[in-house]
């Protein structure tokens, strides 16, 4: 199962996090984990809209040994991130936010992986394990 939410307009950020919450509820995540997942998705979906203009989110169930989880993939073909370490720094922002988007969502999830190429786009993969 892979689902996709296109992110092109600002209200799509809301659609993305609502889809994330539904998926988290369906899989039986605790209330805290639902909130963590939804918040991280909100941050990353907004980043696509803010920095790349358009992109998409894909999400699916994943399993590793005896664990189950939810994986979200955020992809855009925007300008890319020149310095990922700098972008991950708490408080650093190039878009007028709090500069907590990337580092904050990393803290809320179990796995966080970012790949970016200048002029080609950015891909971020996050996973939250169940239980």
């Amino acid at each position: 199962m892979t689902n996709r939410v296109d992110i092109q307009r600002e209200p799509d950020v809301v659609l993305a996090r609502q889809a994330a919450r539904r998926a988290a509820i369906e899989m039986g995540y605790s209330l805290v984990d639902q909130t963590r997942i939804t918040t991280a998705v909100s941050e990353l979906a907004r980043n696509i809209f803010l920095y790349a203009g358009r992109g998409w989110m894909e999400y699916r169930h994943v399993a590793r040994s005896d664990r189950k989880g939810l994986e979200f993939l955020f992809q855009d073909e925007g300008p890319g991130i020149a310095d990922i370490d700098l972008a991950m720094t708490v408080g650093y922002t190039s878009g007028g936010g709090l500069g907590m988007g990337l580092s904050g969502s990393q803290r809320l999830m179990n796995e966080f992986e970012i790949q970016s190429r200048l002029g080609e786009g950015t891909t971020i993969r996050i996973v939250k394990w169940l239980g």
Partner: protein
Amino acid sequence: MEKTSIVKIQNVLIVTLQGDIDDHSAQELQQEILQSVIHHQVSGVVIEVSQLELVDSYMGRILSDTARMIRLMGAETLLAGLRPMVAITIVEMGLSIEGVKTALNLEDALEVLKGGRAAAPSLGRDG
């Protein structure tokens, strides 16, 4: 926006946030609250957030900015009824909602504004 209400009771403005608010609506709401503070000449604003399911960095920024703007206009802001799960997420992300005082619920907030008791110390550096 249709889910959000702003009510004036005596000299306090009570703003109730509900559901899932997109960034643009949050901006508009800030405008509307500031306008209402001037229009009604209130001395206190309670932002009731018990129905808010999520505070991410953007919403956190809006809340803290709005509180600081209201203070510049001479009124006090209290954030009331934040959900435990939302509080945990805010702390774990490392967000600090600066300059906002908090209260357990609406009743508690009104008591603080009436001068009945001290609020929980405001959060962050400018508290």
